[in-house]
């Protein structure tokens, strides 16, 4: 064995250690939670911020990107709360129950908690950590353990608040739940939110997460999700923002048998966005669809990294990701499908496509398959290219001006991924955002 090599801590890492030392006494939770935080920070401290020598972070060198750590956000003031009222508007006019978090803190005054449908419970993570909560104790950090993930450890150490959603066995929640995360502080801050969603057997729910942040914020958000047998979950995450944001998000989900997860990530800008998703299929006959669309310009950077772990056989997984890259933006896709030895009859496919609208844009695709079973169907594909010139000519030959022809082709390109959203209203709202983005490009 080599001697342990310890790199010199960066300014940001040192600042995070100092921040944790100060904050830990005030962070919510009893002694058990405090011990959990301490252990998690220890893991983070050993790993440091992920950097390009860590294979999973090869294209998103967080150590280089986070030059200095922002101070941890405090409870929101009145101005922050007022600004949060319009947060999450990208979802359009779909009727959803808003659960609002401002600067990482649950704000009941802005949230809609009236008339929860039977079997649905929604509460604050901070309160649950403080009061002790069996659901949290049973699941927090345990759904899909990601020991090697420094950013998840950092989230565990510094988590301040988030949502706890529980849907009881057999319950159908008709009205979608919209988790609105708004970082609206005037000074750039670090926000650590942590949520837990437990959907029991046969239950059905649609969950939309939107993340808006003001200039310069650093967001580290994590969601653990337990999906029971025969449950049906739609999960849509929307990230939008300016070019100087850093948004790191981790989704960890375990899924039972004969269940359905329909996950979609929509990224409209943002400085550096890392969406990492770890899905474990524990029961047979489950279908997991993971899709995403990103529209980037300037120096924006979105990294979609997924690991889908087929532990049980007879499951289907589908990944469809589309990135439209303009300016000097960069789209990264890393998708890994793992099929365990006994997961026979697995049917797993992933497709990632990038459309480069400028010579300076960059797409990186890294599909990986690790297959230990012998009776499976697995496939992957990756493409990157410019707009099809022949198609553009065909449209222009009919009188459609160049920019409009390009816009039609871009809409068609991302449409394939967006089609995967089952809610028609949300699908239309997001297509509308694509049109707005394209108009912004024309001006």
């Amino acid at each position, binding site marked *: 064995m080599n001697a342990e090599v310890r790199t010199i801590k960066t300014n940001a890492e040192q600042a995070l250690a100092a921040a944790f030392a100060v904050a830990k006494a005030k962070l919510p939770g009893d002694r058990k939670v405090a011990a959990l935080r301490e252990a998690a920070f220890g893991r983070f401290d050993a790993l440091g911020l992920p950097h390009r020598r860590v294979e999973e972070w090869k294209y998103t060198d967080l150590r280089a990107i986070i030059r200095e750590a922002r101070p941890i956000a405090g409870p929101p003031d009145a101005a922050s709360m007022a600004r949060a009222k319009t947060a999450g508007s990208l979802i359009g006019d779909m009727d959803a129950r808003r659960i609002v978090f401002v600067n990482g803190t649950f704000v009941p005054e802005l949230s809609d908690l009236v008339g929860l449908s039977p079997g649905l419970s929604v509460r604050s993570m901070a309160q649950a950590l403080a009061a002790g909560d069996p659901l949290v104790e049973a699941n927090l950090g345990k759904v899909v353990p990601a020991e090697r993930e420094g950013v998840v450890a950092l989230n565990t150490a510094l988590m301040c608040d988030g949502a706890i959603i529980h849907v009881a066995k057999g319950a159908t929640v008709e009205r979608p739940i919209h988790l609105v995360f708004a970082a609206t502080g005037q000074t750039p801050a670090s926000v650590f939110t942590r949520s837990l969603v437990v959907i029991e057997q046969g239950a059905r729910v649609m969950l939309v997460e939107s993340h808006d942040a003001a200039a310069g914020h650093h967001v580290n958000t994590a969601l653990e999700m337990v999906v029971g047998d025969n449950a049906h979950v739609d999960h849509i995450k929307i990230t939008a923002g300016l070019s100087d944001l850093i948004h790191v998000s981790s989704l960890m989900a375990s899924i039972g048998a004969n269940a359905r997860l329909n996950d979609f990530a929509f990224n409209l800008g943002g400085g550096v966005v890392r969406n990492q998703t770890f899905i474990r299929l524990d029961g047979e006959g489950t279908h997991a669809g993971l899709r995403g669309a990103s529209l980037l310009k300037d120096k924006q950077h979105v990294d979609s990294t997924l690991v889908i772990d087929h532990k049980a056989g007879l499951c289907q997984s589908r990944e469809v990701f589309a990135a439209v890259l303009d300016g000097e933006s960069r789209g990264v896709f890393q998708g890994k499908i793992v099929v365990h030895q006994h997961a026979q009859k697995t049917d797993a496919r992933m497709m990632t496509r990038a459309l480069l609208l400028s010579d300076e844009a960059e797409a990186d695709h890294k599909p990986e398959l690790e297959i230990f079973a012998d009776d499976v169907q697995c496939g992957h594909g990756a493409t990157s290219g410019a707009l099809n010139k022949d198609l553009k*000519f065909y449209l222009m*030959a009919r009188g459609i001006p*160049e920019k409009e022809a390009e816009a039609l082709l871009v809409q068609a390109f991302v449409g394939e991924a967006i089609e995967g959203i089952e809610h028609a209203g949300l699908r239309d709202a997001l297509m509308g955002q694509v049109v707005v983005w394209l108009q912004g490009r024309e001006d």
Partner: protein
Amino acid sequence: MPMLEVKNLHVTVDGREILKGVDLTVGKGEVHAIMGPNGSGKSTLSYVLAGKPGYEATEGQVLLDGEDILGMQSDERAAKGIFLAFQYPLEIPGVATMTFLRTALNAQRKKRGEVELSTPEFLKIVREAARRLEIDTDMLRRGVNVGFSGGEKKRNEILQMALLQPRLCVLDETDSGLDIDALKIVSDGVNRLRSPDRSMVVITHYQRLLDHIVPDVVHVLSAGRIVKTGGKELALELEATGYAQFQGEAAAAP
């Protein structure tokens, strides 16, 4: 003034000269057929008229109503009234045919300073045009040409032509891949569009299309030049003798 005048047109594609001095004059309301062997430059002529990037005119002029169009983008040419019916219509997944038709029609109207059509007006026109071409309106909800048969794609081209009401129609091998019934539907569609104000350039390899769309003038294009011009009987003559007489070396081969 003639509708279209092509004067000494030289066109290079990928550094190779394909058209080597084409002269062609098409009067208002006339239908001209351009016939010729494979590789003679027929499709190149159609693309250069429509303004396909990569088809570089190195010499000569193309005048539409006396105005040189070679410097114009394809969409401007379309708004001026040029329409190319593609030999191989492209499939555009994700763009519904209806959206495509409406965007095209309104873009042209806008460019000409005309008001855009309302949805009911537009639907009425499309339904009527589709009915005449025996196109099921359900197909128009699908992506452009996606899942269409060869014949359906060609009918869709003529549908676009009927909607856009161009002044100069260029039909590139519209008969290829059509069975006899489809050929009849397509030709009837084209014939309905014949008018004293509309000219057509019909590019074809075979005479059979010209039984249905009867031309006023027939040209033979060979090795990048128009080598013979005549009346509609020239097409019949070619059917009997083939193109070998125009192909120099090929003619000398046994």
